[in-house]
């Protein structure tokens, strides 16, 4: 067994994001990627109003780096135009949370979940459901 479970490898910045409470998730669009077997399973969801995202939230089975990254992405996307889903900068996340290279695969799962969210938006947009303009 590995002894002494400590937090040596995590920054205070990461700690601040990791420790945030779970966010409420919107219901208009949703994208999921990964699996427990892959070491990360992430789902993003949001409401869409006037082409902008609200209630951007996520659920994640993931390591602290990726959970902190998810919180950061959700924060950045809140209120942003829907096109922002296609422009989430992974490199910035890597630098911001000092995400080690061995977690590059999990970071891609995060990206896949966001991409799936955007794809869901496009599918819904093309379908008869669409997105009502809300007040």
């Amino acid at each position, binding site marked *: *067994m*590995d*002894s*002494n*479970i*400590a*937090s040596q490898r*995590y920054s205070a910045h990461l700690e601040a994001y*990791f420790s945030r*409470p*779970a966010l*409420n*998730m*919107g*219901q208009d669009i*949703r994208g*999921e990627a990964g699996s*427990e*077997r892959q*070491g*990360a*399973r992430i*789902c993003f*969801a949001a409401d869409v109003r006037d082409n902008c995202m609200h*209630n951007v*939230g996520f*659920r*994640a*089975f*993931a*390591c*602290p780096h990726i*959970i902190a990254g998810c919180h950061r992405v959700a924060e950045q996307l809140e209120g942003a135009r829907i096109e922002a889903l296609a422009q989430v900068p992974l490199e910035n996340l890597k630098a911001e949370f000092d995400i080690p290279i061995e977690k590059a695969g999990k970071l891609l799962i995060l990206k896949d979940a966001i991409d799936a969210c955007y794809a869901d938006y496009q599918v819904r947009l093309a379908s008869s459901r669409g997105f009502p303009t809300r007040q």
Partner: protein
Amino acid sequence: MTEVIYMDYAATTPLDPRVRDRMLACMDHTVAFGNPSSTTHSFGKRAADEVARSAEEVASLINCDPAELVWTSGATESDNLAVIGAAQFRAMRGRHIVTTAIEHKAVLESCEWLATQGFTVTYVRPNELGQIDPDAIKAALTAETSLVSVMHANNETGVIQDVAAIGALCRDQDVLFHVDAAQSVGKLPINVREMQIDLLSVNAHKACGPKGVGALYLNAERIRRVTPLLFGGGQQRGIRPGTLPVHQISGMGETMRILGEEMAAEVPRIRDLRDRLWAGIAGLPGLMLNGDPVNRLCSVLNVSVAHVEGESLRYGLAGLAISSGSACNTATGEGSYVLRSLGRNDQLVESSVRFSLGRFSTAAEVDQVVEIFGDAVARLQRLSRLDEHS
């Protein structure tokens, strides 16, 4: 800053002040600093007397003759010396070793080394509760088997093996029987005669004694010596040469003396604390106990949490000094082979946590651990619940 709660007694333990005091006395220039082999003067004689006193104390706890003990640097060396030394010494008798898949690496890697020297090794697997079936050991014996090595209690799960039954069948087949008792000494009664154990590894630092000292019991009627791993000096009949560290040995003697006196009261006290901890967390969703729920050490509680990511769980528990079965900090990258042997999958191995309590553990600490662990698990489970919408 909140103080970290120590519940990692199966890894090592704080030194008991009584042990420290006796060790310090040995290091005083007026007491027992001499070389115990230099019995031509009073300094050496005092040191030799202290070593003899300590040997009596260790022997008393496991019911052997003090002359049957060899001092070592700890249980790892004792295991190495027992497995490699006995196998090599009895190589003419046969070159087959039987052990289990859940032994400490000190035994497993000794066996792996023997395999490179032409020995064959059979690894008996446990059942899903971590128990080794004595009949499985018996079935693994061949005419070539010279040694069986089975730990008394597992270091990760605390599961206790039926070493008396295995000892009986080994004796019946005239096979040497080694037991690693690093975790069990002072927590379980050990009687090497009744249990028909031929070699027994013990140490001090798992029982509030000093690190860096241990002993190997060699049944004088069954195996008078083993092939040494160290050479030079001739001390300890050449089995383990080197000047004896009197202060360390004295600390081990005091450790065993205290265990002998206090074990009857301490074991139920620690078991109550362990059970209080289990009662506090057992209701958490997805929690699984690893190992036999009944036949395990009073001090160990090993659990896994379903659908919670291991690294995040460990991070959430940073206020606790505990152990995990994760591979993230090991060089092997394989995770806990013990939990894998019990059939646990990657996720459950990664999210496993071992709490181990000991002499200085308190009910207040247990209650704090229940709260911290419960909060961390609940938070991560909420975060990972993908079927939830808002």
